[in-house]
């Protein structure tokens, strides 16, 4: 059973002065599952992600990835051990082309970063990978335009493409649908679902859209004021009294 766990946190805590943003969080994420983190604004979801990806150092506690302690690993090592992370606020290279954005992501995990005497275009393996990813996330029509000129929805796809390029085992997606037009959301969710199931990947997801969370997740962790309030299958969570009052406000009825 234990070998089934890809990511584990042990009493993970992050305090900013008196404010404890993440308070003693211990969770286990099963391999190949889609694990959602939900909770009201300020519950500590993004801070929790920042601790996992190494963007922040925890005050105390541990992060274990495939049984290895990665708690204080510098942020640039994260992808090399197989964790890719996307951001709630679109975080791309605005003046570089869509292609170059993804190509840089593909190059990062290779061994050619300091071959300064050869043009980057000679390294065909990264370009081939870039085309694969561009095809997958559906940006083929806009490959060579500066990333800043993409509409918001496409920038979210680009963001997803950038973490797919190095082929990580675990994807941390921080509100991948944030700011997207409602009609684009199902398309992106289907894509995430497809990546997770066909690529044998584990996905952790912070999401506000309850319909999305309830329909795609295998496991849901509810956070509230930095703590884990509840954890379980979508059905468990929808039926949980405490969650209903704290977060869902009694408004959400599971329609499945």
């Amino acid at each position, binding site marked *: 059973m234990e070998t089934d766990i890809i990511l584990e946190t042990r009493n993970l805590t992050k305090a900013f002065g008196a404010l404890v943003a993440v308070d003693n969080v211990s969770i286990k994420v099963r391999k190949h599952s889609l694990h959602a983190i939900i909770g009201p604004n300020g519950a500590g979801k993004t801070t929790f992600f920042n601790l996992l*990806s190494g*963007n922040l150092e925890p005050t105390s506690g541990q992060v274990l990835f495939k049984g290895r302690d990665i708690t204080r690993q*510098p*942020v*640039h*090592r*994260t*992808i*090399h051990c197989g964790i890719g*992370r996307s951001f709630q606020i679109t*975080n*791309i*290279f*605005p*003046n*570089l082309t869509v292609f*170059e954005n993804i*190509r*840089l*992501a593909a*190059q*990062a*995990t290779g061994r*050619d*970063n*300091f*071959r*300064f*005497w*050869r*043009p*980057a*275009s000679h*390294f065909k393996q990264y370009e081939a990978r870039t085309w694969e990813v561009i095809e997958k996330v559906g940006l083929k029509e806009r490959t060579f335009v500066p990333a800043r000129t993409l509409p918001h929805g496409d920038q979210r796809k680009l963001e997803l493409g*950038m973490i797919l390029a*190095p082929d990580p085992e675990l994807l941390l997606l921080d509100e991948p649908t944030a700011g997207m037009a409602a009609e684009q959301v199902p398309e992106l969710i289907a894509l995430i679902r497809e990546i997770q199931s066909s690529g044998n990947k584990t996905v952790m997801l912070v999401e506000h859209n309850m319909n999305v969370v309830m329909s795609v997740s295998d496991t849901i962790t509810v956070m509230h004021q930095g703590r884990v309030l509840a954890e379980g299958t979508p059905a468990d969570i929808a039926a949980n009294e405490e969650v209903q009052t704290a977060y869902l406000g009694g408004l959400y009825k599971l329609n499945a």
Partner: protein
Amino acid sequence: MTPSAPSFVQQHRIALISLLALILLPFIVGVFEGASPLEVWSNRSGASKFIQGLAIEIFILALYALSYDLIFGFTGLLSFGHSMFFAVGAYLTGIALKSFGLNLWQTFGLLMVAAVAQALLFGIVLPRVKGITFALVTLGMSSVFHIVIMSRELGDYTGADVGLQGVIVPDFISPATERLRLYFVALTILVLFYLLYRRFVDSPTGRVCKAIRENEGRAQMLGYNTFLFKLAALILSSITAAIAGALHTIYQPIVSPDISGLGFTVTALLIILIGGVGTLNGALVGAAIFRLLDFGLRRYLGESASFINGAIYVLIVLFLPYGIVGTWQLKASLTFQQMRQGWRHLLELFGLDRVRHVSKE
């Protein structure tokens, strides 16, 4: 994948014509001054010597500006201590030749060691400070160097505030007797570094440098240890600037302490602002314009030259925020929209876009 000969020539038409023009320049000017190319070649007459000198100065400035474009224009590191890279090369060459009687190759070896060492010195603060703070810390470091250069205690070597004088330059590249050779040496070094830079900025390493300029945090998240890339750019830049400094000493052959001050860093900044930040070609074009404008205005306007000079630079930066080469590369007339985009881009490079956001809050 090697391009066929005609397309290669076509692709690099402007560069090849410019190179040819620079190779022929001393001879053509010689003809106008009444000396045959053979006479120019043998260096017997003084024909075209003045133009050669001016061109050498431009080559040195261009090399220096190129090195600044690499760290500022491509990697986004705003350094206010860049003149130190140049001055270390200049002083080291002067002192090695004059006080220690080393030959050119020994001097060159020493230069490489010093260049890498000073890049590492800047590298110490790299992971800790960013943006305008990095600029101020590097300014501090170069100021310390400036003070050391100016100090009386080292006056025997550096010449203190008078400057380093009486450097004995090896005969075979003496600016007095073998100026044409020095001209071609300087031109060759410039061309080689230009080609190296072109290659570097398009290599996997250079691409990451651009990514760091655009969004360093994201580059880290992609898995790049950005410190190493910034350090690599600094080392290459430092070596280039030190060689430019060495050429400066050989050509002059006196070294003024002014070249280690902030003013000379601003010179590099101005040159690439005129030419176009992050274009490489801009450093070459900018250096030529900078030196020729300064020379021309001084000659015809005397004292008021620097005022007019300044006004012209302000106008260029204001109306051509991408610089001359950058605007040329847009391949269209500059719209107001593009100008605004250009100003924003400049603000970002100087780390001033965030200041604006803060003042809004």
